């Protein structure tokens, strides 16, 4: 049974320029102990989806206008704020992209980790700090007993990201939402954080919702992939399926834009055009202006997510004709 199931989620932002449909009918599931990679360009709605699950969408201007989010049997959209506060940090936790700004600059990291433990596990300060050190050891921070007295500015970027993960994981949540955990780090530190996430995935029973725009990370870590574009899910399947037989033209373009070790390339392929304006998105399929397979019908028909083979969902009305064209 799915740990988290998001069904037809709609989160809109009401701005003076108009309604931004940041998340517009997103559906996916995460199974227990599994890692779902949510992939998309900037402004594709991945972060807003995460914030909607946490119920941390700034209101105003944001509002979750429709859909359902089930965590186990709890409907997260119907619990009150006090109940939600108990869920945050203990059942779902989130780690963030920028490890500098998401840590309080003048509170010791040990105290910042202990905070969640004091709130959710009812520990007193001393035992919370002990548990904080354990959490720091869990994310492989060397000499954690000393580091817990450090302030964020005394730590390197990679260490700070580990602290963020330690905060998120301190109460052993059922679901960890990792919002671009490696984006702000250099390649070598990225690799070590990835190793850590892999290790945590194997050791903890938590599910992970991994938000990223890096397909390489998804290939390494995720079990399933959800490709998002302009607030909609374009394709959803297991990692193997997505990489071996990508169904949606957008997914194909994403994969084609990756550098390859085998083929000799002088120039990387890119997807022409920009992410569409969120206030007045293109009619029909939102990807059609940039899609090399687009036909006239794509401008009108709004594709729905169809199961094209077992466990492989694609939102493209021309799915059946795609390969025919290529052949």
């Amino acid at each position, binding site marked *: 049974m799915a740990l988290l199931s998001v069904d037809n989620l709609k989160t809109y932002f009401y701005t003076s320029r108009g309604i931004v449909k940041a998340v517009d009918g997103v559906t996916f599931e995460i199974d227990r102990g599994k890692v779902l990679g949510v992939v998309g360009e900037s402004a594709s709605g991945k972060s807003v989806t995460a914030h909607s699950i*946490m119920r941390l969408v700034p209101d105003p201007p944001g509002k979750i206008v429709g859909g359902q989010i089930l965590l186990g049997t709890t409907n997260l959209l119907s619990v009150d704020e006090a109940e939600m506060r108990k869920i945050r940090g203990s059942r779902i936790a989130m780690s963030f992209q920028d490890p500098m700004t998401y840590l309080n600059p003048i509170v010791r990291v040990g105290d910042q980790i202990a905070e969640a433990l004091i709130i959710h596990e009812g520990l007193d300060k001393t035992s919370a700090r002990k548990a904080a050190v354990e959490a720091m050891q869990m994310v492989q921070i060397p000499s954690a007993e000393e580091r817990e007295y450090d302030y964020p500015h*005394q730590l390197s970027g990679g260490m700070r990201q580990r602290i963020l993960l330690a905060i998120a994981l301190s109460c052993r949540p059922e679901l960890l939402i990792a919002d671009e955990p490696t984006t702000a780090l250099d390649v070598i530190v990225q690799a070590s954080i990835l190793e850590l996430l892999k290790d945590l995935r194997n050791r903890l029973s938590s599910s992970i919702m991994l938000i990223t725009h890096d397909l390489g990370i998804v290939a390494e870590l995720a079990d399933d992939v959800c490709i998002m574009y302009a607030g909609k899910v374009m394709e959803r399947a297991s990692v193997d399926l997505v990489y071996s037989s990508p169904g949606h033209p957008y997914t194909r373009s994403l994969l084609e834009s990756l550098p390859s070790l085998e083929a000799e390339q002088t120039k990387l392929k890119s997807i022409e055009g920009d992410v569409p304006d969120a206030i007045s998105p293109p009619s029909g399929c939102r990807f059609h202006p940039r899609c090399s397979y687009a036909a006239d019908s794509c401008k009108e028909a709004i594709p729905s997510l169809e199961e094209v083979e077992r466990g492989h969902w694609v939102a493209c009305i021309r799915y059946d004709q795609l390969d025919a064209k290529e052949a």
Partner: protein
Amino acid sequence: MSNNHSKGKKTVLVSTRKFWWRFKKNRAAVGGLLITIAFALMALSASVISPFDPFNMNFLEVFHPPSPSHLMGTDRFGRDILSRIFWGTRISLLIGFASAGIATLVGVPVGSISGYFGGRVDEVIMRGVDVFLVIPTFFLILLIVSIFGGSVWNVMAVIGLTSWPSTARLMRAEFLSFKEQDFVEAARSVGVGEFRIILREIMPNAIFAAIVNASMQVAGAIMTESSLSFLGLGDPNSISWGFMLRDALESSRIAPWNAIFPGLMITLVVVSFNLLGDGLNDALNPHLKEK
């Protein structure tokens, strides 16, 4: 790096030392601090270091100019001015600190709540603050003191209760900017409640502004108290520099030392608290901190 960490708890010292290192770079602020400390010592030991009883009148020594026995001369009742200056420090500092304390205790929570919650709460609180801000404070103080009398406690309370709106404004601004910070969102994401966020996440960042502000308010309160006493509305039973200035007014031609010394003290203490506040601002303000 690793030396700092040889014992975890040392890092506290490191950041305190860093503060002191930044503070020290501002010479004027160090001067302000030293003068402030000197005044504080004077106030505490006034009864010991005063050469004469400040109330003791001696009609044989009226209007003596400064001399070895009376370093600052005597006033129209033959009282020793130096001793009165020492005792006057008590009133000035007491009123300065107490009113700044009251203003901070009222202004910080009001401003924090207003800035953090925003919306209608903010609207209501800020309109209230505006009402206070549009009233010419000094005349309000004059009015209240002349109705309820000018005892030290009244003066303290009145100055404190009329200067909290500016503290509230300041804290509101701090909270408005800090509540948008990423680390507040991070705290929310682990289920930290509103009041815990105010007290444990934002307050430690925002309180510096209040400390700096309080230091300036001490100077302001001392000025106000001196002005009230000068106008004859202070506590007649206490020794106040403003009161001494008023006494000296008529005799300023024949005995100018009567006015010079209290005036000098008022200037000195106000300037030093302002310098101190400035130095604290440079050393504490996170926006100015160098990397």
